[in-house]
């Protein structure tokens, strides 16, 4: 099948972004990521995007595909193309580094609030010492109307992760502030778009209830 990939391009020093179309011949079950990589290898080596695992676990390839945040590596082109056209744009809510690659510092720089060795017991059997579910893709920041307009907002995933690494019923004080759970307008777009069903929005509500009822303290 022939598809038309319309990619939002932006390079350092440009006054504004531009859209550029590329034609690719791939099977409908090819991922949008593999289609982009094909373009970068065969047509335009200056096209940049972030990718690593190619199977939905590393969170590198979050993009806005035909208007919706997705992981490009687990999105089949045939399922999202409209009339053979796929528009690919960088995640919103982050600074664009180059084309589809964004700078996720705003999310990762808050990780001091998250226990590094999040030790989890799954089914009470095995201990996993890392982030088991959230793939750290930043999709929730892009989907969230608040994160898009309020750069100081901690963001859905970081709040949820900070809550999960709480100790003795206490979470970092900044969660109980305008930058924390009180910024949220309960749009729940984060939970809707999260590619792994981590539901940060629900956790934010839980933290709010915890603060209101006094069951959750701050440190």
């Amino acid at each position, binding site marked *: 099948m022939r598809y038309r990939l319309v990619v939002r391009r932006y390079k350092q020093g440009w006054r504004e972004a531009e859209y550029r179309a590329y034609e690719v011949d791939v099977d409908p079950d090819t991922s949008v990521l593999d289609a982009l990589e094909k373009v970068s290898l065969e047509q335009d080596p200056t096209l940049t995007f972030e990718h690593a695992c190619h199977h939905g*676990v590393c969170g590198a390839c979050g993009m806005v595909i035909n208007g919706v945040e997705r992981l490009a590596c687990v999105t089949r082109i045939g399922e999202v193309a409209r009339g053979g056209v796929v528009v690919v744009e960088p995640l919103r809510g982050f600074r664009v580094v*180059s084309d589809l690659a964004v700078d996720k510092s705003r999310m990762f720089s808050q*990780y001091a609030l998250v226990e590094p*060795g999040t030790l989890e017991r799954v089914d009470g059997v095995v201990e996993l010492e890392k982030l088991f579910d959230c793939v750290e893709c930043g999709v929730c920041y892009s989907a969230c109307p608040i994160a898009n307009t309020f750069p100081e907002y901690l963001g859905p995933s970081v709040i949820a992760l900070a809550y999960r690494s709480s100790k003795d019923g206490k979470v970092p004080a900044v969660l109980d502030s305008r930058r924390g759970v009180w910024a949220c307008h309960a749009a729940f777009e984060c939970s809707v778009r999260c590619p792994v069903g981590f539901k940060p929005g629900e956790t934010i509500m839980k933290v709010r209830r915890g603060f209101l009822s006094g069951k959750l303290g701050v440190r």
Partner: protein
Amino acid sequence: MTKKVVVIGGGVTGAALAYDLALRGLRVTLLERGSIGSGTSGRTHGLLHSGCRYVADVEVARECYSENVVLRRIAPFLFEKNGGIFVAVDESDLEYKDFFLKKCEEAGIPVKEVSREEALKLEPNLNPDLKAAVLVPDGTFDPLKVILSFLASAKQRGADIRPYNEVVGFRVEGGEVKAVKVRDKVSLREYELEADFFVNATGAWAKKVARLAGLDVPVKPSPGVMVALDGRVGFRVFNRLNKPGDGDIIVHHRGTSVIGTTSWVVEDPDKVEAPREHVELLLRRGRELAPVTSKLRVKAVYVSSRPLVGSLPAGTGREVSRSFAIIDHSREGAGNMASVIGGKFTTARLMAEKTGDFVAERLGVSTPSRTAETPLAPYWAYFT
């Protein structure tokens, strides 16, 4: 004057090397043509080898196991403490068991045989007809995060990390590389970068890159296919108790199970696609290990290329280990350049240490490698 080194390639080898050299006090710039980990390293199973898969070669197995221990020590937060399990499904597997146990002991890898009942209690999704099971110290990781941890640590020691910067040529004069020519894709410009030493750590691309300088690296890209399933069928890594072959592992991390892998050889790592019959083979072999895999949705099929080390012409290579090689390009007219190829993701730190020794010796720097003892910075520090 602090000596300058350019490392080409932002896979795990280049990242670990940038860190090793920066820790020795050298001024390092790393160039990667795409995003970090976008070559082979990002696209692996994410298996922290215990060495058991390679027990036929005790040296290689021992090397894997000791690196497994070192990595867990310097960055415990990067690896799941899930372990692995080798299972015998048929008679031929069962025949391999005694050899396997003997070799694991020789290599010093702590393994433990468990009964069929116990194995099924620990991992209910294993094939219920299994005939033997051995627990091993495998682990799993998110490759990108490991690479970012090495790079964060390198940055904290002053290294300059430049993704989206592709080496497109070299300036070679008087038997020395003077500079690399770089295409910067972030601001669409080309520039030259001078240094005292250059290391080509581009894995399956090492031949293509060396050719830009008129040099040769005996590497063959050898791709392998992996099939990712939506859902986690086990906690430990499932391995077939037999000689390494196609479709004999299922690696679990986060909410995913990956069946791997196959192997063939190509000329150009930029022209590789997963053959359909490999996918079918993997799914069939996966079912033999864990029947439930047939019920899971295929989330992704992906493929990447090993940097397979070909035969080294006499005198050009320094075979520092059975599994990887450092190619000294001085005899080909580039006195200050080397290529490092081969190895495993799991052994990247060791490769970097040996390559670091080589570079340090050439530059007259006497600081030894300290990567085996120094804790790694967390991956999120890369962004701060």
